[in-house]
């Protein structure tokens, strides 16, 4: 069964550095998402992306964050000038269609980001 794949599985970075988290969504999916989960807390929505632009973003997704689909397969989340509180699991998800469809989102296994 097709999967969403994320790399790296664990990223350790010094505070203030930039990180790029990578995702390969399922190939025929059109809608892409990033979520994060701070240890012991809920999964939280960051941003959704469709047709090469951001559809929606949450309050968490400030100017420090950006997303890109640089080619036909990858979907990236960039965090500039990382802070200690950015330490979390970051999950990528994709969905085949949006609108008023009942297709679920499929999640990758995440990247654990540790900011030192």
């Amino acid at each position: 069964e097709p999967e969403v794949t994320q790399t790296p599985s664990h990223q350790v970075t010094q505070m203030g550095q930039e990180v790029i988290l990578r995702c390969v969504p399922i190939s025929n999916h059109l809608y892409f998402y990033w979520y994060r989960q701070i240890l012991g807390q809920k999964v939280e929505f960051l941003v959704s992306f469709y047709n090469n632009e951001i559809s929606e973003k949450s309050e968490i997704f400030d100017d420090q964050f950006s997303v890109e689909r640089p080619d036909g397969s990858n979907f990236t989340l960039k965090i500039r000038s990382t802070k200690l509180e950015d330490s979390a699991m970051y999950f990528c998800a994709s969905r085949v269609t949006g609108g008023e469809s009942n297709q679920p989102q499929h999640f990758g296994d995440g990247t654990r980001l540790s900011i030192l």
Partner: protein
Amino acid sequence: SQKIEQNSEALNIQEGKTATLTCNYTNYSPAYLQWYRQDPGRGPVFLLLIRENEKEKRKERLKVTFDTTLKQSLFHITASQPADSATYLCALETFAGRRALTFGSGTRLQVQP
């Protein structure tokens, strides 16, 4: 403000029994309610989706009910097995605005052999 509540305490049951997990929400008009399974260190795995106009959905040993009057969903696992031990997440999705999922905090299920 919008709120999704799941039992924060772990649910411990014996193998073979039915596990029932609860999801309550306030100040939402969800179009869809979804249940996901999450194992430690892994991403959420989709289990079942139910629409606002559906009362019940089944898939193998899983059953979901959705009561929009009570603003509640119940998730049942019949004939539970130790392999069912995991955290189960309830997630809501609305038609308005973003199509992102809003998750509850999850209920940890432990099935004892």
